[in-house]
């Protein structure tokens, strides 16, 4: 792609809707219960599926007899892995990464089970009730195997093996380095280090996972409706696994109630339902219940990070060294593999700072837990937590203001594009501006005085900062996951203007609540010069938008937005040619605004866009010579490197000196996501992300015991914050259009979750600084604070 092509479009867009606080048009439907989720579809002849799930963390399947279940009322079929063999190929998440061991993830367990909740069999029945009743008639005998309970023990050479074919539980390892970090740290005036623990996290969507497969024998077309973020990706994978041509498979993700990464992978249930529907020639539905979702949806993080940061006496960072162990759970998921989170930790650990010397190592270790997958922020929440905690400790040691220490070390404006130690390139970011504005909004002096007064009165109050920079809108230069064989660098816009002048914009991205129907309509309306209301946006259906993967990794605004600009510009050009012909004017002298074509130097002369659209389809007689009729186009966009987003978060907290409850008193975000398409949507994304970050910081933790049993199998025990635990989050923007993307957009869907755990942990450490307590683990629960305070006070 040429650089002129990138530069020009930012100028050419005359924003009218882009940048406006347009109300989300999908909300009328979604907030009044009129959305159509998977479970809202009831095709005639529908069957229901229920899965038999392992109660053991690790066991050989000694016997699996389904004959009694088959005779139960309403049961149509019962399948195990044996029945699937002729129907589907095994799933193997491949990667070209050197130190990665590929393993198999069977849709139904073969020979042994590797985590509690793994599916062994499926009952297909006339209702879900009957299906669940019949599950109890499946006869299973397990020979328990030793539990591979956690990463540190699983990584021992004599640990029991989870995947014999791998020969080790360490399924991947990787190192990124720059300079000579050991020498640099040896020479550092100040060094700070700790072992950090970022606990395992579940993805709790309002809508659980679920899918509905239908294969009418007449058409031979397989339709899968799924609560997925990635319809295109599923279609490609299913074509391969089921050995069907891609154009016979349609994957639809209409309304989806949240995803956050956990709905971006291919799941066993999706494969099984497709195979079953194809065999039975009847539609089959499976809706995950909350317990299944907590047991089997991909989980996140679960990292142990040993990190050490070295600085000069004046506070200049000279190096960072870190060893990360990631508990990747029982299976490597398709398509991201188990490498996604681990590798991103060491890719992003150097943060927004100039980092002359660096070494980050990671190993991903398989254990008897649900498979690990992407979660909002991938890799960045933990790295921001670690690095920003070390920065605060350094500031305390050097008696420097934590904000000043950051300002001193941020990558400076004249250093962009900046290549990180892991080889990523930050195109540009406004780190200093975000921090300065955050301090202004906080009214840092007043808040610091308030803190001093409150402390004098015996209260435990603290202020915490966190800055991050993240890579978004990633193009084809870097695979989303290392060494992954699938392409994630492009998206397409399919734009169609009908003879009445209304616009249908179809995209292969697939939102789960992000407001694409509004944001992308704004972009298209501006690119064409038509009214917002005349643009309809359709997403998430591979029959309508066959090329592209989906919505994940903060990519839709950049990739789909860029494709929308291109498609809009192409059609606008053609429309102006037609209009020029109709008006006998030079198209170069024409423009379109508010659905009206007009002469630039005589704006009162013009004609409605509608008339032009009608003419476009009226046949050759009415069109310029050699012009093909119609107003339709498909355009693709690949931003190649992607673009950086950044933000500074500030948390002000109080810790109850007796109950150790943490109350967040203020939460400020100053972010730069480039040109803002819709501030309402951006602020909603930030707030939602921060809410999830607050959950991570204070409440949420997936707990498995030493036998691999899940102790947080319901929402009574897995605590997500509710409206009562949240507070108004103050969101401010710095708007620096990206120099490298069409439209100047930067991705921003994940940032809230990235900054919040770090800012809150730092604020709690600040509140407890008189006790010398440094938070090195999330979530920060009252129980943990009770123990830390006891230890600090010397009480047993």
């Amino acid at each position: 792609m040429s650089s002129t092509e990138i530069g020009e479009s930012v100028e050419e867009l005359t924003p009218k809707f882009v940048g406006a606080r347009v109300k989300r048009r999908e909300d009328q439907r979604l907030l009044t219960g009129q959305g159509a989720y998977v479970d809202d579809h009831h095709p005639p002849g529908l069957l229901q599926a229920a899965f038999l799930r392992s109660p053991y963390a690790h066991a050989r399947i000694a016997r699996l007899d389904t004959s009694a279940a088959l005779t139960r009322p309403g049961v149509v079929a019962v399948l195990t892995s044996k029945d699937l063999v002729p129907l589907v190929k095994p799933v193997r998440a491949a990667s070209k990464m050197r130190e990665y061991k590929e393993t198999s993830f069977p849709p139904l367990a073969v020979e042994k089970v590797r985590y509690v909740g793994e599916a062994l069999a499926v009952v297909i029945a006339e209702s879900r009730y009957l299906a669940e009743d019949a599950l109890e008639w499946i006869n299973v005998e397990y020979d328990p195997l030793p539990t591979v309970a956690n990463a540190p023990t699983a990584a021992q050479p004599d640990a029991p093996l989870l995947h014999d074919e791998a020969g080790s539980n360490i399924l991947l390892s990787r190192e990124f380095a720059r300079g000579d970090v050991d020498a640099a740290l040896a020479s550092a005036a100040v060094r700070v280090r700790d072992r950090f623990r970022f606990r395992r996290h579940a993805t709790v969507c309002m809508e659980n996972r679920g899918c509905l497969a239908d294969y009418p024998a007449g058409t031979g077309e397989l339709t899968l409706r799924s609560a997925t973020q990635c319809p295109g990706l599923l279609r490609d994978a299913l074509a391969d696994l089921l050995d069907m041509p891609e154009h016979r498979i349609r994957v639809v993700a209409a309304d989806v109630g949240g995803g956050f990464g956990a709905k971006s992978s291919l799941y066993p249930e999706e494969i099984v339902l497709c195979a079953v529907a194809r065999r039975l020639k009847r539609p089959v539905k499976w809706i995950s219940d909350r317990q299944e979702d907590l047991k089997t949806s991909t989980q996140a993080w679960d990292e142990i990070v040993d990190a050490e940061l070295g600085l000069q006496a004046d506070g200049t960072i000279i190096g960072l060294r870190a060893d990360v162990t990631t508990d990747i759970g029982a299976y490597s998921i398709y398509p991201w593999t188990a490498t996604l989170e681990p590798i991103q930790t060491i890719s992003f650990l150097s943060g927004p700072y100039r980092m002359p010397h660096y070494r980050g190592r990671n190993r991903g270790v398989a254990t008897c837990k649900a498979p690990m997958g992407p979660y909002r922020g991938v890799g960045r929440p933990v790295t921001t937590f670690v690095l920003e905690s070390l920065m605060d400790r350094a500031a305390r040691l050097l008696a420097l203001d934590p904000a000043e220490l950051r300002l001193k070390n941020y990558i400076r404006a004249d250093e962009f594009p900046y290549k990180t130690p892991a080889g990523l390139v930050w195109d540009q970011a406004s780190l200093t501006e975000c921090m300065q504005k955050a301090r202004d909004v906080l009214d840092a002096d007043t808040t610091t005085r308030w803190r001093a007064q409150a402390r004098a009165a015996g209260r435990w109050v603290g202020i915490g900062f966190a800055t991050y920079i993240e890579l978004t809108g990633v193009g084809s230069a870097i695979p989303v996951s290392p060494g992954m064989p699938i392409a994630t660098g492009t998206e397409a816009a399919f734009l169609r203007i009908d003879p009445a002048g209304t616009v249908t914009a179809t995209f292969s991205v697939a939102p789960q609540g992000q407001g694409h129907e509004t944001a992308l309509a704004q972009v298209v309306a501006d690119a064409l010069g038509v009214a917002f209301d005349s643009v309809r946006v359709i997403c998430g259906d591979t029959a309508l938008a066959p090329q592209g993967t989906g919505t994940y990794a903060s990519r839709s605004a950049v990739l789909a937005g860029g494709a929308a600009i291109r498609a809009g510009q192409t059609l606008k050009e053609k429309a102006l040619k037609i209009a020029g012909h109709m008006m006998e004017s030079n198209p170069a002298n024409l423009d379109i605004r508010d659905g009206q074509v007009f002469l630039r130097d005589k704006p009162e002369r013009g004609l409605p866009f509608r008339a032009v659209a009608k003419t476009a389809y009226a046949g050759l007689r009415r069109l310029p010579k050699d012009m093909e009729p119609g107003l339709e186009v498909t355009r693709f966009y690949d931003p190649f490197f992607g673009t950086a987003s950044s933000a500074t978060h500030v948390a002000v907290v109080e810790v109850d000196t007796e109950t150790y409850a943490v109350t967040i008193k203020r939460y400020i975000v100053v972010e730069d996501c480039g040109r803002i398409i819709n501030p309402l949507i951006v602020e909603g994304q930030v707030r939602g992300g921060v809410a999830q970050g607050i959950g991570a910081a204070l409440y949420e933790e997936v707990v498995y015991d030493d036998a691999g049993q899940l102790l947080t199998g319901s929402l009574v025990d897995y605590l997500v914050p509710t409206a009562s635990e949240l507070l108004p989050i103050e969101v401010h923007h710095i708007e620096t259009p990206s120099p490298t993307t069409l439209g100047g957009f930067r991705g921003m869907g994940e940032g809230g979750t990235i900054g919040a755990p770090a800012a809150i942990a730092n604020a709690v450490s600040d509140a407890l600084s008189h006790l010398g307590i440094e938070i090195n683990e999330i979530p920060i629960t009252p129980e943990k604070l009770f123990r830390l305070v006891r230890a600090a006070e010397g009480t047993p």
Partner: protein
Amino acid sequence: MKPPPFAYHAPTHLDEALALLERYGDDAKVLAGGQSLMPLLNFRLSYPSALIDINRVAELSYLRQENGQVCIGALTRQRTIEFSELARRQLPLLHEATTLVGHLPIRTRGTIGGSLAHADPAAEYPTVALVLDAELVLQGPGGRRSIPAEEFFVSYLTTALAPNEIVTEIRFSPAPRTSGWAFEEVARRHGDFALVGVAGVIDTEGEQCRTARLAAAGAGPTPIRLRAAEDILVREGVTEQGIQRAAAKAAELVEPDSDIHASADFRRHLTEVLTRRAIQRARERGQEQRA
């Protein structure tokens, strides 16, 4: 998460309900608000062969004053109590505790009888019943009996209720008008079951403490009456030291367990903190009452 199969009965009279219970022996479950029972069924942790749904038994739903007592029908919704002027005036502790029970939709369905019969030691109502010396009226095929709350709660989710009995009514004697009350609790989130809760009703005059009643939730297999702590308050008065010593005693009296949300140590610590807070707030309220 679908319940196992069960027969379903929806009687409209208490007699009918009792007859059905008798018919199934200990194999049936009474269904009231369903806020505790339905999760048990959906997790398939309970396999009753029949559910006797008492939601249509209108005679079990009331809240009225009788001979100086407040009598509440077992089927009365938590939400009804929350909005009852009578409960607010006569049983302010019960009223305050109600606002801590779950969330609005749960209180809209959940009943007082269900909460007591379920006997979750971390629940608010059993603790309130204990601290207010409430009486539970139980009806079986052989007739009615009444039992003090202190004898009703036997162990974790276990009560003195026989399988063929139904809780029909709960009777509270309002505390003297001069006394103050408080329900203090710590939960991980708003609406969660308490890690620990402490209910207190005390009647003070200056630093003197005429009567004190204290009980803890979530700190043992049943709600626990903190009698030795009450004695300290009455003996030593609501002085700083008296309160401190009563609170420390409370922490000795409880027998909490550890779980993923809190250790036994932390629950003991919270018992002490919350007992102190409950006494202090109850005392302040008592003073306001008199003023």
